[in-house]
């Protein structure tokens, strides 16, 4: 009996009126865990009942503790008929099972009903007493910490990164059981909610077991999704990165960083090796072995799988790369044997490479769900690898068993792995998986970034070995090291233009780099970044079964190809050369496919400047046509010039420039002076080209570009014209706004504390008029653009601000419907500071120094900036605020709350964490102030109501909150809700319905976090928002799944004075310059 769960029901408030005669309610509560149920007494005739129950004790296995949610049901007692349910609260007690997380759950929870939404609140107290379990064969994995955050959590240090963990559980969907025909929608929804909650618990437990097996103690970048497959079942699957994390005490943070010292040395080794080595056996091996075996879709007759012929392994692919190289990358079924270590270790390999290889090859899948890394972890980045496959759900032999799905994902992962190999990489970072289901067709997708990683993190006791790895080569600067190609120059997996790194001049870099990760902190960037989206609609015929699957399979490669082309063109148009956070979503509907690729464009200093875009007409001689082309060309050139100015991209320019681009100049200057002599004449010409780029002289452009076909757009039909127009229609962001889909906007370094997280959903109904692909594309593009415009307008009171982690999700919920859901956060920054990047560059620093400072660069940076700007912002900020608020929506809650939170707040928080249980109980008793007579008619009662302010809980999709320091992670929040209505019109239509529901979901997340003792949610995301409506019947149903990490954070300024104040300025500098 390894655990005792104790629950106390304190009080309720704002209950709905359940008895019309008295306008009151006779409420009681049922507390259920597993199969045990307790009840409180009935508290008669009150809307604010005070149960103050005894402690209900459940003695349970820790396995159950992990799987089961605590279920609290509030009911109205009825003497004559059945008791009416008011609503339920599901409480995930997992956070209590980990000693480092929360110790008690206590607070007001919204009472939720799937039909009526939130109906009052209930105050609950939950504690767990865990006994030590010495059973070696235990099934539980209590104590393994889970984080949604896709980087090493802020108050931890990664002692070791073990690698990929995945799990998948399947169950029958309650909505498809026979019983659903006779039970009420409420019962059905609740069964579903409960099942998913159970399955999530089970999944987490199983993943925890795997982590323990690997010797880890935490899962970082935990990504859980569910697939509603319909008839064939309900799948909950999760992936994550197993790690061993050491907790950092706040004071010792800088010290412990010294462990990180030896990072750069290996980095240099690895980066040197590939380019100097001769032919790489890896690639050759891959080629031969993969050409042999048949493609999987032939091997598995029941499914139809399509490895897209062009794109899966195209990190910086362009048109011309649709060669057989890619085709040869189709997945092999028996990868494990193919990629044997011994054969690959050629004589030319460096020691390091071997080590890394072995460390990683031991794993089935060297994948990492992380997107940000400790400095030095990432050595080289190859490019994006992705794989998709189309499956038929009605062909699963054993729908209730996970085997088939496991095999599907296995297949996809193998493909990804082989793609990474082809790029000369042995690891995949920023890895994620997703599905899109329409009827019986399911598209499975996986993508990541092929990379070479520092093996130091993979091995036991590795932390000291680094020094021995020192080589005679000098370390390559961390600001450009990751850009250097990992693959062999002479045997490139795809045609690419290689040049010597513009930063260190020693290694080769590609001309463009696409990745799915955040911009590494240490990367050198010129100017600012921006959101780049490629959008695409493709019609398809309605079909069934295999025919349908084949049709989709055939469309996929074309879509990926076009999305890539769009991305590439838009990147050029913004004069940038790298994409970070690339996420390509392809969503399937009955009669169309939607593709949306989002990424953040950046100008990496290390990479060559991109060329312009040249328009070429096929039909020569036609004068008007020629003229037309010329005008388009001019527009494009103008746009490029304008964008350069907008994003402050001014590499290698003259001195006579405004101070805004100081950083750019500075960087280039050091390069010109300090950097090694330019090796080849060709490089020289390239440099020149970058100078004259924005001019209108095409001939010169042409010369310098050589045969770079990617930049030439041919206008030969109306399609092409449309394409170009769509290219140019992307409206620039209004002044004062920036946007990106990565954690942080490259080029902005001085975040202030204003934070506004939001979720927006739009559904468009296409008219039944027959639409062309072009028309659809336009509609889809407009939809996304208009959404962005709406955001800018709504958030205008936060200017200057940046929309970060813009996460678009598209779906085709029904024929002729397009749904776009966006979750993002708007963060304010200090404009003056943002312009000027601190002068000292990472190039000038020693490796060790950099690392020491980089461990928590974001925090320190935010701290420094806020410390610097505080006086000014407080003085100037306030009047400005009032000024704005008179005419625009003010969303300055964050900063307001911040100003309010003084030492007192901090003290309260601290007291709270120490002996939260008792403190909270008392306060809650006070606050809910018993009003036995029901109708509050006295002044006193009224006052007591005012006395309990609701804890402010901030939410952000990022892994941190600017201006604050996370002092404790309280556990993962993973919630699934269903809401249904049979009075859609009365609730304000679909919009009103969903608006309420999203607000309710936010409220429930906040309440759970507050009950855990937290005041913020980081890495928040909405995984699923599935809306079904039937306006004719006045009904709608919606499912939402959200997740995040509950944390306690304190204002940076509230912390003990930093021991190394002198260091901060510098740290800030280094942190800022690589701010991902």
């Amino acid at each position, binding site marked *: 009996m390894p655990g005792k769960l104790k629950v106390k029901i304190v009080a309720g408030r704002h209950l709905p009126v359940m008895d019309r005669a008295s306008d009151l309610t006779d409420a009681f509560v049922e507390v259920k865990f597993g199969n045990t149920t307790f009840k409180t007494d009935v508290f008669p005739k009150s809307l604010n009942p005070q149960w103050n129950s005894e402690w209900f004790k459940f003695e349970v296995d820790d396995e159950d503790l992990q799987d089961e949610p605590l279920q609290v049901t509030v009911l109205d007692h009825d003497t004559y008929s059945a008791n009416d349910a008011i609503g339920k609260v599901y409480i995930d007690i997992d956070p209590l099972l980990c000693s480092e997380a929360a110790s008690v759950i206590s607070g007001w929870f919204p009472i939720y009903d799937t039909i009526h939404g939130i109906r009052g609140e209930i105050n609950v107290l939950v504690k767990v007493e865990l006994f030590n379990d010495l059973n070696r064969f235990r099934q539980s994995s209590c104590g393994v910490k889970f984080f949604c955050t896709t980087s090493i959590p802020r108050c931890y240090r990664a002692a070791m990164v073990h690698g990929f963990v995945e799990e998948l559980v399947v169950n029958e969907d309650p909505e498809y059981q026979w019983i659903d025909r006779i039970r009420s929608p409420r019962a059905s929804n609740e069964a579903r909610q409960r099942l998913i909650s159970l399955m999530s618990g089970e999944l987490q437990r199983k993943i925890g077991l795997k982590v323990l097996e690997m010797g880890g103690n935490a899962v970082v970048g935990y990504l859980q999704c569910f697939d509603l497959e319909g008839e064939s079942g309900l799948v909950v699957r999760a992936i994550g990165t197993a790690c061993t994390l050491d907790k950092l005490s706040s004071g010792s943070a800088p010290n412990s960083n010294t462990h990180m010292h030896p990072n750069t040395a290996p980095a240099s080794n690895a980066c040197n090796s590939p380019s100097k080595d001769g032919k790489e056996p890896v690639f050759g091996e891959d080629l031969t072995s993969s050409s042999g075996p048949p493609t999987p879709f032939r091997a598995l007759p029941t499914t139809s799988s399509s490895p897209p012929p062009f794109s899966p392994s195209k990190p910086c692919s362009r048109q011309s790369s649709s060669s057989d190289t890619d085709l040869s990358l189709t997945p092999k079924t028996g990868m494990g044997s193919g990629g044997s270590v011994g054969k690959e270790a050629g004589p030319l390999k460096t020691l390091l490479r071997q080590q890394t290889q072995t460390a990683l090859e031991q794993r089935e899948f060297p994948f990492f769900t992380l997107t940000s890394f400790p400095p030095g972890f990432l050595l080289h980045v190859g490019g994006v690898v992705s794989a998709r496959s189309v499956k038929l759900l009605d062909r699963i032999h054993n729908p209730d068993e996970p085997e088939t799905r496991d095999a599907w994902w296995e297949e996809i992962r193998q493909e990804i792995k082989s793609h990474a190999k082809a790029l000369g990489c042995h690891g995949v970072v920023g890895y994620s998986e997703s599905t899109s289901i329409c009827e019986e067709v399911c598209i499975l997708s996986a993508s990541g970034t092929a990379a070479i990683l520092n093996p130091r993190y993979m091995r036991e006791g590795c932390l000291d070995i680094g020094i021995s790895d020192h080589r005679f080569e000098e370390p390559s600067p961390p600001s450009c090291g990751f850009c250097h190609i990992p693959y062999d120059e002479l045997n490139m997996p795809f045609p690419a233009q290689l040049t010597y790194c513009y930063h260190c001049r020693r290694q080769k870099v590609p001309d463009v780099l696409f990745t799915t990760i955040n911009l590494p902190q240490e990367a050198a960037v010129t100017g600012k970044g921006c959101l780049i989206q490629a959008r695409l609609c493709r019609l398809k015929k309605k079909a069934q079964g295999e025919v349908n699957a084949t049709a989709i399979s055939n469309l996929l490669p074309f879509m990926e190809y076009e999305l890539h082309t769009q991305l590439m063109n838009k990147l050029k148009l913004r004069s940038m050369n790298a994409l970070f956070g690339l996420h390509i979503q392809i969503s399937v509907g009955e009669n169309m496919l939607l593709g949306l690729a989002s990424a953040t464009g950046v100008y990496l200093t290390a990479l060559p400047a991109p060329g312009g875009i040249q328009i070429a007409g096929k039909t020569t001689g036609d004068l008007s046509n020629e003229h037309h082309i010329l005008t388009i060309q001019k527009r494009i050139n103008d746009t490029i010039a304008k964008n350069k100015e907008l994003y402050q991209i001014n590499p290698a320019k003259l001195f006579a420039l405004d101070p805004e681009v100081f950083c750019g100049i500075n960087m280039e200057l050091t390069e010109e002076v300090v950097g090694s002599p330019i090796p080849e004449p060709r490089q020289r010409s390239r440099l020149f080209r970058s100078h004259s780029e924005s001019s209108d002289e095409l001939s010169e452009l042409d010369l310098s570009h050589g045969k770079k076909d990617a930049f030439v757009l041919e206008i030969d039909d109306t399609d092409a014209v449309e394409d170009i127009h769509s290219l140019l229609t992307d409206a620039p962001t209004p002044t004062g706004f920036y946007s990106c889909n990565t954690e942080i906007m490259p080029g902005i370094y001085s975040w202030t504390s204003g934070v506004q997280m*939001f979720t927006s959903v739009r559904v468009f109904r296409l008219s039944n008029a027959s639409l062309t692909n072009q028309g659809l594309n336009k509609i889809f593009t407009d939809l996304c653009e208009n959404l962005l415009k709406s955001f800018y307008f709504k958030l205008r009171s936060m200017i200057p601000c940046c929309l970060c982690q813009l996460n678009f999700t598209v779906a085709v919920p029904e024929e002729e419907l397009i749904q776009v859901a966006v979750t993002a956060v708007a963060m304010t920054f200090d404009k003056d500071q943002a312009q000027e990047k601190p002068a000292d560059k990472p190039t000038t620093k020693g490796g060790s120094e950099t690392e020491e400072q980089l461990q928590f660069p974001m925090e320190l940076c935010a701290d420094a900036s806020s410390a610097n700007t505080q006086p000014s912002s407080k003085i100037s900020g306030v009047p400005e605020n009032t000024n704005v608020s008179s*005419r625009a929506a003010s969303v300055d809650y964050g900063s307001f709350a911040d100003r309010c939170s003084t030492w007192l707040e901090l003290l309260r928080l601290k007291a709270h964490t120490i002996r939260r249980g008792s403190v909270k109980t008392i306060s809650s008793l006070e606050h809910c102030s018993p009003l036995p007579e029901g109708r509050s008619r006295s002044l006193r009662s009224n006052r007591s109501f005012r006395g309990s302010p609701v804890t402010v809980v901030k939410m952000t999709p990022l892994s941190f909150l600017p201006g604050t320091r996370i002092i404790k992670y309280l556990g993962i929040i993973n919630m699934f809700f269903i809401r249904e209505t049979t009075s859609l019109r009365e609730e*304000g239509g679909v919009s009103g319905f969903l608006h309420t529901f999203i607000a309710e979901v936010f409220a429930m997340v906040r309440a759970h976090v507050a009950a855990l003792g937290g005041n913020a949610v980081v890495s928040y995301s909405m995984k699923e928002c599935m809306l079904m409506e039937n306006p004719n019947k006045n009904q709608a149903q919606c499912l939402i799944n959200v997740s995040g990490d509950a944390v306690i954070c304190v204002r940076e300024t509230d912390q003990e004075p930093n021991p190394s104040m002198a260091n901060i300025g510098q740290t800030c500098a280094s942190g800022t310059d690589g701010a991902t």
Partner: protein
Amino acid sequence: MRDICSGSTQSDREHSSTVPEAVEQAEWQQSNAECLVLETGWDNTQNKMAVELDVFVGNTTIMDEEVYQLWLDGYTVNDAVKVRMEGGVMEECEASADVLLSDTMDQYRTFQMCERLLHSPSKLANQLLFQIPPNRQAMLIERYYAFDDAFVREVLGKKLSKGTKKDLDDIGAKTGVTLKSCRRQFDNFKRVFKVVEELKGPLVENIRHHFLLSDKLGRDYAAIVFFANHRFETGKRKLQYLTFQDFAFCAGQLISNWTVGAVDNMVEDMDVDLDKEFLQELKELKVLITDKDLLDQHKSLVCTALRGKTKAFNEMEANFKNLSRGLVNIAAKLTNTKDVRDFFIDLVEKFIEPCRSDRWTAADMRLYLTHYNNSAHILDTFKHQAVWDRYMVVIKSCIFKMYHD
């Protein structure tokens, strides 16, 4: 997949089992109707598509004060969009009409969802659905309970009943306030009235604490409640020149001097009702006009004090007895509810109008009433000094306030 509509019969039943909510929702529904119509018609022609759904929810609820005011003023979404366009908000952020419409609808929806909470403002502070910073909560409440002086002037002193509510469209047409806004304001009056009616203690404090209003607004509401409770006549033509603020001031005077709470705020009775004992005692003042000696003595005392100090002395002297009778008669009659209702009209007819026709200045009025009040103390046979003062302090300040054009 379970058809989400399959369980309609069951859920209908479920719904009807919680009718009280449904009742509450009915009003809601009404206000939402226009929103919905708009939604489906949006953008239909332009882009070959329709926005089926469009929501934006912030963790911190975003509320634009300008839009809130438009909503409170009862503008429809379309009208509000027009007003905003004219206001130039579009240039501010390179927005289009679509963006503005979408934003306005979102905000209207938010306000509609908040409205339920605003009905009992103390709930707003500890509800969990919307995260609204305290200063904005205060703004929301204050604005929601704010009213148009023109409108309140029309309903002041009327019974806050269904009957009056039916006349709101007329009042709306007359005052230029939209019907929706009229309804909100009227319901606010009624809600505050219902809550405070049965509460003990000081009226203004009660209102402020229950509805979390500012001092100013609390006092105004106290006036409205007080007027509605006593059904003071304010609609007569002769009273038209008085503003709401005039009446609110007078109400404040009455509340702080003539109610039970004025003398002892620990007693059982409430602040809303006039002190019955005091009203009885007022009858004693009649002696001032029935006893001829006292009347003459009073007159000579006042006249002596006034002589040479004002141009209107002659008129004052000539009118003294009439004016004094008027004031004392008002006092003596106040035990009658009917006469309480006519308090203001009586003041105007019996005192203010005669003075005005004699062209007294405001300073004359002040001078006269001060001496009129003080002289009574010197009358040795007049024993009711306390009652007299309690009566006159209100009369004086009311008349000072009401004596204007």
